[in-house]
C-alpha cells in the first residue's frame, strides 16, 4: 500500500484536492459539521501525500510521472526520442514549494473554520481545494501547456474567492482587477507557448530545453514569459493589483494568495533556469530581474509607509520583500553562465533568494493571520481606529511582533538569516545593490513600528472593552508559523543545507532536469 502510494504520489497529490473539491458541494448538503470534517480530512490527506513525496524527492532526487502511460516511469513511448504524454516532474525545488504551500494551506483551513461565517461555505471550500490543486499542479508539472492550465485554475479560483464578500464594493473591484491582470498574463503565456510550439513542435519543458536554439521567435517567447510571470508575481510596474486583492480577500485566502504569488515566481524561475538554461543571454534576464527587484523594493516600501489599512500595509511590504527575492535570484541568474563567479557568490545569492522565498512565505502568512485575528476580534481594519490591543490579545500581539521582526530583518528571526545571505553575496556582485537593499530593509521596519504601536500599544479604547483573544484554532496556525520563523532564524545553516541547497542544485543544473525525462 505504502509503496503504491509512493509510486503514484505525484498524481495523487494533484488528484486528492481535486476529488475533494468536486465532492465538497455534496458534503455541504449534510450540514456544516460533516463539511468541516470532510474538508479537514481532505487537507490532511493532501498534506500527508505532499510531505511524503517531498521527503522522498529531497532524499532520492527528482521524480517523473507520466500521465496515462502503461507505467509512470515510462516517459518516452517505444521508438520515440521525445515525450508525447503529459509528464509531471518533481525535483527538490518543486518539492520545497509544494511543502511550503501545504504547510500554509493546512493552517489556513484550520484558521478559516473559525474565521469564515456564512451559508455559502461549501462553495468556498470547494474553490479553496481547486486553488490548492492549481498550486500543486503549477509546481509539479513538467509540461508548458499544463503549466498554463494550472495557472488559469489558480487565477480563476482565487478571483472567485477574492470576490467572496460580493456585497463589498471593494472586493468586487479588486477581483476584477486581479482577473484582468491574470488573464492578460495567462494569454501572454499561451501566446508564447504557441511561439515555442511553432518553432520546436514540442510542449514538454525538458524536451524543449534540450532542443532550444537562439532565434528571434524564442527571444520574444522569453520576453512574453518573463512579462507574464513577473506580472503575476507582483513585480513593480504591475504590482497595483496585489495590495487590492490581498487587502480585500478573506484572510485565509489572502494567505493563499501570498503562496500563489510565490508560485508564479517559481514558474518564472523554472522557465528561466530550466527552459532557457542553456542561453548565453541569461545575464541580461538576470539584470532584468535585478531591476524589477530594486524597483519593487522601493515602490513597495514607500507605498507601505502611507497605508492606514493593516492588510494593505502588509501587502505593500510583501511587494518590497518579493523585490529581495528577485535581487537574490537575479544575481544567481546573471552569474550562472560563468562557473567561477557562480560558485564564488552566485550560488549563495541563489540560496539567499530561495531561502528568502521560503521565509517570506512563512512570515507573510504569520502577519496576515495576525492581522486577520485583529480584524476578527475588533471588526476594524484601519490602524487609526485601533489602539491598545496588547492587553486584550496578548498572543496575537506576540505573533504579530515575531512576524514584523522577521519581515524587517531583525536578528533572531528567519528574515534576517536569509537577508544576510543575500547582502553578503550580492555585495560581491555589485555593492550598490547591497546598499539599496539595506536601506529598504531599514525602511521596512518603519511601517511596522507604526502599525504595532498604533494597533497594539497606546491607551485602551472604551469600544474594545469586550474584545477577547481569538479562538484556539486561529492561534494554532500563528503559533506554529512563529515557531518555524524563530527556528529558521536560529538554525539557518542547517535549514539551508537540508532543504535549500538541494533546491538550488535542482534549479541550477538544467542537465539533470532534462536527463530525468530524456
Amino acid at each position, binding site marked *: 500500500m505504502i509503496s503504491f502510494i509512493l509510486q*503514484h504520489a505525484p*498524481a*495523487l497529490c494533484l*488528484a486528492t484536492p*481535486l*476529488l475533494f473539491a*468536486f*465532492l465538497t*458541494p*455534496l458534503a455541504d*448538503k449534510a450540514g456544516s459539521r460533516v463539511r468541516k470534517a470532510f474538508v479537514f480530512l481532505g487537507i490532511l490527506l493532501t498534506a500527508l501525500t505532499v510531505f511524503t513525496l517531498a521527503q522522498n524527492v529531497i532524499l532520492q532526487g527528482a521524480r517523473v*510521472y*507520466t*500521465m*496515462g*502511460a*502503461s*507505467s*509512470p516511469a515510462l516517459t518516452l513511448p517505444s521508438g520515440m526520442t521525445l515525450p508525447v504524454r503529459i509528464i509531471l516532474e518533481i525535483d527538490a525545488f518543486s518539492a520545497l514549494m509544494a511543502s511550503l504551500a501545504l504547510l500554509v494551506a493546512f493552517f489556513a483551513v484550520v484558521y478559516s473554520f473559525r474565521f469564515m461565517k456564512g451559508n455559502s461555505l461549501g462553495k468556498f471550500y470547494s474553490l479553496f481545494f481547486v486553488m490548492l490543486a492549481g498550486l500543486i499542479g503549477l509546481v509539479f508539472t513538467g509540461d508548458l501547456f499544463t503549466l498554463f492550465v494550472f495557472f488559469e485554475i489558480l487565477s480563476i479560483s482565487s478571483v472567485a474567492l477574492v470576490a467572496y464578500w460580493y456585497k463589498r464594493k471593494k472586493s468586487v473591484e479588486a477581483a476584477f482587477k486581479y482577473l484582468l491582470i491574470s488573464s492578460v498574463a495567462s494569454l501572454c503565456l499561451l501566446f508564447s507557448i504557441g511561439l515555442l510550439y511553432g518553432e520546436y513542435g514540442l510542449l514538454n519543458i525538458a524536451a524543449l530545453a534540450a532542443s532550444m536554439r537562439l532565434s528571434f521567435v524564442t527571444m520574444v517567447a522569453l520576453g512574453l514569459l518573463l512579462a507574464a510571470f513577473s506580472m503575476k508575481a507582483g513585480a513593480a510596474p504591475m504590482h497595483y493589483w496585489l495590495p487590492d486583492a490581498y487587502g480585500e480577500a478573506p484572510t485565509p485566502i489572502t494567505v493563499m494568495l501570498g503562496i500563489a504569488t510565490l508560485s508564479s515566481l517559481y514558474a518564472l524561475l523554472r522557465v528561466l533556469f530550466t527552459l532557457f538554461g542553456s542561453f548565453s543571454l541569461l545575464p541580461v534576464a538576470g539584470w532584468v530581474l535585478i531591476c524589477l527587484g530594486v524597483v519593487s523594493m522601493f515602490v513597495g516600501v514607500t507605498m507601505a509607509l502611507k497605508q492606514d489599512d493593516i492588510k494593505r500595509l502588509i501587502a505593500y511590504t510583501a511587494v518590497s520583500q518579493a523585490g529581495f527575492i528577485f535581487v537574490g535570484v537575479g544575481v544567481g541568474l546573471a552569474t550562472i553562465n560563468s562557473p567561477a563567479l557562480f560558485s564564488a557568490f552566485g550560488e549563495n545569492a541563489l540560496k539567499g533568494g530561495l531561502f528568502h522565498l521560503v521565509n517570506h512565505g512563512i512570515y507573510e502568512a504569520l502577519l496576515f493571520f495576525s492581522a486577520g485575528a485583529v480584524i476578527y476580534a475588533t471588526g476594524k481594519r484601519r490602524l487609526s481606529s485601533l489602539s491598545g490591543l496588547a492587553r486584550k490579545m496578548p498572543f496575537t500581539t506576540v505573533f504579530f511582533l515575531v512576524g514584523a521582526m522577521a519581515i524587517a530583518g531583525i536578528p533572531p528571526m528567519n528574515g534576517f538569516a536569509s537577508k544576510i545571505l543575500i547582502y553578503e553575496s550580492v555585495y560581491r556582485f555589485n555593492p550598490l545593490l547591497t546598499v539599496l537593499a539595506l536601506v529598504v530593509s531599514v525602511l521596512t521596519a518603519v511601517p511596522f513600528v507604526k502599525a504595532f504601536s498604533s494597533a497594539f500599544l497606546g491607551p485602551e479604547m472604551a469600544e474594545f472593552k469586550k474584545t477577547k483573544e481569538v479562538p484556539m484554532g486561529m492561534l494554532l496556525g500563528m503559533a506554529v508559523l512563529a515557531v518555524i520563523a524563530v527556528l529558521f532564524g536560529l538554525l539557518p545553516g542547517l535549514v539551508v543545507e537540508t532543504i535549500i541547497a538541494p533546491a538550488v542544485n535542482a534549479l541550477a543544473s538544467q542537465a539533470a532536469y532534462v536527463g530525468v525525462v530524456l
Partner: protein
Amino acid sequence: MSGLSKIVKNVASVFIVPGLIFGAYVVAHGHLTPGGGFQGGTIIATTLALLLVAFGEKSFRKAIGKNALAMLESLALFGFIGIAFLGLQSSFFNNFLSNSGSLFGQSVQFGVNEGNINSAGVIPLMNFMVGIEVASGLTIIVIAMYSGWGERK
C-alpha cells in the same frame, strides 16, 4: 416573468427535443466524429437556455431543480476523475479499457474505416461525464446571470 409569447413557446418546444438529441449524439460520437463532451454539452446547455428564455424562470425551475443541477455537475466531475483513478493500476489517466475486449474495448486497426462506436475505451465514458458537467455547468451560469442563484425572496 412568465416567459415570452405563445409563438416563441411553441417554436421552442419544437426545437427542444431535436436539440437535446443532437447534443447527446455529439457527445456519444466524440471518438468517431468531430465533437465530444464539451461541444455536445454546450449544445444541450444552449437548448436549455432557449427553454429558460422562452418559458421564463419559474416554469424552468419547476422542470429542472437548482440543486439537481449542482449535484449533477459535482457527480459528473467525480465520475470523470473517478475514471482517471481507475487507471491507477498502470498510471493515472491510463486508458485501461481500450483494446481490452470489454465495454468500448474493441480494437481498431490503423487506417480509414467506417467507425465502430464500441471502441476507444474510457474516452466515450469521459466524454459522457464531461458532457453532463458542461451542460449542467453552463446552465447554472445562464440561470445565475438570468435571475441570480440565491434563495428567492
